[in-house]
């Protein structure tokens, strides 16, 4: 019910003083109410729920999250590499080992 899907604003029009916009979701276009995201402009991604844009997707934050994940991935790779080589002593036990 609280599902909201990101889509890209293709154009903005005003219908009876309410800002509306065509929003594209991978091949599907819908008319969406933009009244709650006055800061959003054409080309922005917005999260859409029951025909309303809830929030503008922050591209810089999205990029930052993905970069953090990539860093975590590199760290995990490095740690498992060290573990495989038996170079690290006294590592915290994994949940599986602890719960067993």
């Amino acid at each position, binding site marked *: 019910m609280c599902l909201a899907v990101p889509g890209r604003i293709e154009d903005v029009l005003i219908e*009876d003083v309410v800002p509306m916009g065509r929003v594209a979701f991978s091949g599907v276009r819908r008319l969406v109410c933009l009244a709650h995201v006055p800061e959003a402009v054409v080309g922005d991604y917005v999260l859409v729920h029951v025909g309303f844009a809830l929030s503008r997707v922050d591209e810089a934050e999205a990029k930052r999250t993905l970069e953090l994940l990539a860093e975590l991935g590199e760290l995990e790779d490095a740690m498992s590499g060290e573990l495989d080589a038996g170079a690290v002593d006294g*590592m915290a036990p994994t949940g599986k080992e602890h719960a067993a």
Partner: protein
Amino acid sequence: MKHLSEYRDPGASRTLLSAIERAVTRPWVIMEVCGGQTRSIVRHGIDELLPEAVELVHGPGCPVCVTPLEAIDRAHAIAERPGVIFCSFGDMLRVPGSSGDLFTRRARGADVRAVYSPLDALEIANRNPEREVVFFAIGFETTAPANAMAVLLAKRRKLTNFSVLVSQVLVPPAMTSILQAPSNRVQGFLGPGHVCAVMGMDEYAPIAAHYNTPIVVTGFEPVDMLRGILRLVQQLERGQACVENGYERSVKSEGNLTAKRLLDDVFEVCDRKWRGIGSIPKSGYRLSYEYREHDAEQRFEVQDHAVAEPEECISGQILRGLKKPHDCAAFGKRCTPDAPLGATMVSAEGACAAYFAHGRIGRAPKGLPLYDERAAQGGAT
């Protein structure tokens, strides 16, 4: 698709799972509050991929599930009035009241229509000025701005034939109610991302501090959820209880100020009954005085009848994180999505319906025993 596919990446998910395994040293019970997250967790099998020490329990975050039977009966009574066009989100149409569902009403001649948006219901009112058009305004804070905008536009456009049957609920009071119970097991919450996209995070800090329970606002994709779980486990292991934003691309700490102003104008906070849980103080919205002319309950003066839930249903305990669907003797047998006994089976986002839809019948979650009906009844095992 951008902002979805990157957050479904199996490699990133494996990395996060590995980091969770490294971080956890003790058992922890984590609740996801939102029904969309419950569905995603079960669909992707996230709870089964986690280390055994991390248990996910499923909260009361499906608004269709927690809409009380009395409200559904009121909707049915209004839908049956001559001249009424009754509009509802599709999810509500097949939820049974004390006698049948909205499809049953439609089969008997009532004009019941499924709409995607409250604005669709408003357009139906605009095109049918001689008919009374009623919209069943259910949902959490995520849906509230859409429902509020429909009411505001109806007033502004003088659509006097449009009214709403409001059954809006609010997340923070439900979390407080769960944490206050002496039997509570929840030690950390995955916060509801889209609710917080509207409301922001300010309401959650007092809950985290008072109950010493960390809350990480989390998105809905597998990578989002695993990241939320990792951050919760890290806080729990360190003995912290902070509110963190794990859904940075969509949630600002102050929320959506434009939408919040609209909510303050159109709605006021009231007590609400939650199906399976009971009444929770200040846990819902009703129309504020200025918009009561669009209140369907006042317009149609529907009588309330107390309705009893089946005694066998344990959905109240599931919604509080005390039990799982497999703990119920009726799950998948006498209670299915086609013939649900209670709250957690009536919508695809309910824990029981999600378990049922993803083939978790006849097998228990890892590490837990399967309910044995014959043994419970004293028969042979």
